[in-house]
C-alpha cells in the first residue's frame, strides 16, 4: 500500500461522503418544498389554528429550513430519525424490526448469484461466439430489458401455480424447519438472482473479453496455448479487478430489485416498509428508508471504484 494508492482511496471515500451529504440535502429539501406542511397534513383541514401552532412548535416547523435540516441530519447520525406520522412509533424501531429480514434476503441472494454469475460470465467468455455464449447473452439481455415483476410473476406461475412446489407468498414469521425456510425464501431469492445474475454475468464477460484484446493474449495464442488456458491462466488474473468492480456494481441492483420482490411476495423487509410509507405519505419513515438505501448504494458503488483502483498495477508500482 503506497502513498498514491492511499490518497486515491481516501479521495474516493471523501467523494462518497460528500455525495451522501448532498443526497441528504436533496432528500430533506423535497419535504421542505411540500405544499402545506407536515403539521397541517397530519391534522387535516379542520384543525384549529391553536392546535396547528402547537403541533408546529412540537415538530420544530417554526424554525428556519437550514436549522431544521441540521436537527434532522443530527438525528439521522445519532440513529434517531424521528417518529412515524402515521403510527407514532419510532422510525428507528420500525426499520430495526425489518432490517434483518432484508439483509438476510440480500445475503442469500448474493451468496447464490455471485458464484453463479462469475461462472457463467467466465464460461461464456471462454467459449465466446458459441451457442452457449449466445444463449446466455440473449437470456441476460432479455431478463434485463423486461420489468422485474414479469420475472417474478412468471416464476410464481411456474413454480407455485403449475408445479405447486413452492408457496406463492413467503411467510417468514412462522418458520420452524429448514425445509420451510428453503420454501419461504426460494422464490424471492430466485427472482432477485435472475436480475442480479444477468447484470453481473454480462459485466464479467465484458471484463474478461476486454482483457482478451490485449497484445499479450495474442502472444499466448501464437504460442499455441489452448483457449481455456489462455482465458483462465492468462486473462483471468488480470481481470480480477474489473470483475470485483462488476460484482459490487451489480449488487447495487439489489436495491431496486428488492422493492419489487418484497412487494410481490409480501416479504416483511425495509423496502416493503418504505412503500407503505410512500402510500401513507409518512415522510419521516420514507426519508429514513431513502437515506438507508442511498447510503448502501453509495457504499457499493464506492467499493466498486476502490476495487478498480486497487486492481490497477500501474498505481501499485509507480
Amino acid at each position, binding site marked *: 500500500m503506497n502513498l498514491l494508492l492511499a490518497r486515491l482511496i481516501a479521495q474516493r471515500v471523501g467523494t462518497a461522503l460528500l455525495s451522501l451529504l448532498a443526497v441528504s440535502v*436533496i432528500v430533506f429539501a423535497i419535504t421542505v418544498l411540500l405544499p402545506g406542511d407536515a403539521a397541517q397534513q397530519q391534522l387535516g383541514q379542520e384543525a384549529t389554528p391553536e392546535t396547528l401552532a402547537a403541533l408546529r412548535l412540537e415538530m420544530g416547523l417554526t424554525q428556519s429550513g437550514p436549522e431544521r435540516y441540521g436537527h434532522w441530519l443530527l438525528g439521522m447520525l445519532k440513529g434517531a430519525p424521528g417518529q412515524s406520522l402515521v403510527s407514532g412509533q419510532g422510525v428507528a424501531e420500525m426499520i430495526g424490526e425489518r432490517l434483518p429480514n432484508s439483509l438476510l434476503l440480500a445475503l442469500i441472494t448474493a451468496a447464490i448469484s455471485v458464484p453463479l454469475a462469475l461462472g457463467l460470465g467466465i464460461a461464456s467468455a471462454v467459449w465466446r461466439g458459441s451457442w452457449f455464449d449466445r444463449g446466455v447473452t440473449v437470456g441476460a439481455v432479455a431478463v434485463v430489458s423486461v*420489468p422485474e415483476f414479469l420475472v417474478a410473476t412468471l416464476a410464481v406461475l411456474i413454480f407455485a*401455480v403449475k408445479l405447486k412446489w413452492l408457496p406463492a407468498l413467503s411467510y417468514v414469521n412462522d418458520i420452524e424447519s429448514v425445509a420451510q425456510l428453503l420454501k419461504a425464501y426460494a422464490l424471492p431469492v430466485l427472482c432477485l438472482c435472475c436480475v442480479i445474475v444477468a447484470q453481473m454475468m454480462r459485466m464479467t464477460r465484458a471484463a474478461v473479453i476486454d482483457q482478451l484484446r490485449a497484445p499479450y493474449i495474442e502472444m499466448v495464442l501464437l504460442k499455441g496455448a489452448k483457449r481455456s488456458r489462455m482465458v483462465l491462466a492468462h486473462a483471468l488474473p488480470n481481470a480480477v479487478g474489473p470483475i470485483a468492480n462488476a460484482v459490487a*456494481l451489480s449488487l447495487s441492483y439489489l436495491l431496486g430489485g428488492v422493492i419489487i420482490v418484497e412487494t410481490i411476495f409480501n416479504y416483511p423487509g425495509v423496502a416493503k416498509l418504505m412503500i407503505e410509507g*410512500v402510500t401513507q*405519505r*409518512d415522510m419521516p419513515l420514507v426519508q429514513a428508508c431513502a437515506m438507508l438505501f*442511498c447510503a448502501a448504494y453509495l457504499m457499493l458503488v464506492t467499493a466498486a*471504484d476502490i476495487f478498480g483502483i486497487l486492481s490497477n498495477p500501474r498505481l501499485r508500482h509507480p
Partner: protein
Amino acid sequence: MNKPSSPVPAVHAQPVATAADSRPERRRRMSAAGVAGLAIIALWMAAAVFGPWMLAKDSGDMGDAAVFAPMGGAHWLGTDYLGRDMFSRIVEGTRYTVGVALVATLCASFAGITLALLAAVRGGMIDALMSRSLDTLVSIPSKMFALLMVAAFGPSVPMLVLIAAIVYAPGAYRIARALAVNIGAMDYVTVARTRGEGTWYVMRREILPNIAGPMLSDLGLRFVYVVLLLAGMSFLGVGIQPPDADWGSLVRENIGGLSEAAPAIIAPALAIASLTIAVNLAIDALGGSHRRSE
C-alpha cells in the same frame, strides 16, 4: 468526470449481434429482428393514438363475463378481476404507458442535451457546477428518488413525467456533454466563435447537428428505462392511479388472479416486455453502435 469508473452502472443491453454493425453494406437491408422491432413499436403507437376509438366495447363494461376468464371466445385475452375485457384494458392502457413515457423521455433528453451543450460551449464554472450537481442527482437510485417525490407530492401524471425527466436527464447530459466537448474542440467551432457567433448559435447550429445521431439512439434506450421505471411505480401502486391504468397498474390490480394463472396478469406484463424488447431491437438495427452507460 475523470473517475476510474462511472458511478452509474451500465443498465442497458449490449448489442446482441455486433457483426452487423460495422459493415456499411449491411446498413441498407435491415435485419429481420430490426423490422420486427419497428413493427411492434408502430403497432403500439397506433394503439396509443387510435386505440380508444377502435374498440368495439366500452372497456369499463363488466358484462356478464366471469372474473379472470381464460383466453378465447368473446374476450381474446380473458377478463380482469371485475370481469372487464382484458384486451380493451391493455389497449386503453397503451396511451399511459407509451404516452407518458414518451413525453417524459423527450423532456429528459431535451433538458439533458440543452444543459450539456451549454456546459460544453461555455465551459469553466458553469460546466463544473452543472456536472457536479447532476452527478449528485445520479447518486440516488432512480426508484428511490421516484418514491421520495411521490411520497412528497403525490402521484399525478404531470408529477410522474417530471420525476422520470429529472431521473433520466443526468444520463442524457453526461453522454451529450462528452460528445459535445469533442465537437467543441473542432476547428470549425473555433472559427464560428472567432466570427463572433453567440453561445446559442454555436450550440444549435455547430454542435447539435453533429451529436444528433448518437443522441437519438440514446433517446430510444432512455425510453426503455422510463417505461420500466413508470411500470414499476404503477405496479407498486404509486404510479398511475385508478380509475386510469397503465400496463404496470393492470398487473397490480389483477395480482389476485395469479393463483388461477389468469391471462389478465401475464398479458400486460408481456405487453411491456414486447415494447421494451422491440425498442432494443430497433436501436440495434438502426445502428446503435454509440451505446454507452446510462
